[in-house]
């Protein structure tokens, strides 16, 4: 192999290593950065801060927003655990009032759910849901207010308090 080709190979290798190094640090930096990905509707001038602590405790009762006044801006709540995933909300305040609530993290947002049933499953019957007569003894349904939602929401509103 000629001298110049060997030198070129060395230069290319050094450049390659540098590229990988920079790509790695870039990725690392991105991983540690805030999980907030600002949507286009984010109000300008907002002060976004996020904390990664979950389960900040506090009572299970819903946040009392009536008496507090809030500074305008956009606030990111803590990541709260909803058992089967995380909930994280971002709250926008305008004119002292909540104008928007965005879900930054929502349970089961991993699209790659594993299929734990290895066997072929039979075709399962499907139907379009339709309203039925409400003549029933009782109703089954998921509870509307997730405690994790309340937690993350409270955390966001605490940051907004004037």
């Amino acid at each position, binding site marked *: 192999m000629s001298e110049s080709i060997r030198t070129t190979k060395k230069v290319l290798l050094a450049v390659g290593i540098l590229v990988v190094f920079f790509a790695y640090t870039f990725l690392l930096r991105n991983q540690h950065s805030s999980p907030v990905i600002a949507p286009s509707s984010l109000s300008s001038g907002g002060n976004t801060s996020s904390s990664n602590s979950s*389960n900040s405790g506090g009572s299970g009762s819903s946040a009392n927003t009536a008496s507090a006044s809030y500074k305008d801006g956009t606030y990111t709540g803590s990541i709260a655990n909803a058992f089967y995933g995380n909930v994280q909300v971002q709250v926008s305040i305008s004119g002292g009032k909540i104008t928007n*609530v965005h*879900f930054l*993290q*929502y*349970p089961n947002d991993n699209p790659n759910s594993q299929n734990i049933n290895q066997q072929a499953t039979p075709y399962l019957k499907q139907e379009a849901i339709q*309203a039925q007569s409400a003549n029933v003894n009782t*109703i089954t349904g*998921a509870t509307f207010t997730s405690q994790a939602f309340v937690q993350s929401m409270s955390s966001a509103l605490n940051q907004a308090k004037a």
Partner: protein
Amino acid sequence: MGMPITVEVVDDRVGDTAIKDTFDYFKAVDEQYSTYKPDSEISRINQGLPRKQWSKEMREVLNLCKKTKQETDGYFDIEHNGKLDPSGLVKGWAIDQAAKRLRKRHIADFYIEAGGDIQTWGLNGDGEPWRIGIRNPFNTREIVKVIHVSMSGVATSGTYVRGQHIYDPHAPGKPVHTVKSLTVIGHNIYDADRFATAAFAMGEEGIKFIEALAGLEGYMIDHHKTATMTSGFQQYVA
């Protein structure tokens, strides 16, 4: 746990004691297992209470959680960020225990409902199987299915959040949560609840998991407003 509880007993002879006892029982469960009460046993455990001071009942419940985790390939897991939260099992377990307490009083016809999970026994006030409505996750004032059960546990996993603010930060415009609710029917609410919890975490595959489990039937509603049911579900429909 912080949720409403309803008890209906079909028996004129039953005094208020049986029902009061049921509510007192749930209150005690809350005092012990609520992660939102800093003095509950589970909170103290999460604050570092030594294992030898854990109550026998707590150990039993945590053991049940461990077994459920194994049975669901890890989809049921009470440990999050180094803390324990057994509420995904405690709800169904507590209703099951409360139903057993009523049975011990020889009460034959009743249902207990807590946070949307139900255990029924016997027949309703009309002498017929209990009629249970499945709430429409898209309009919580509506019912989209009526099932008829006598001695069954019915649990529904899901979260209903009003429409347009749910999004996936990695894929704007794509809905994040494709399963809106999953209702599971079994002989007892303890099994129905813990497997509904695990199956919901599996997304659209969850209904197949329920299909594969003997003795459990399911009704899954997805974001297209389509319901998928297990092959034995029809027996519960009028």
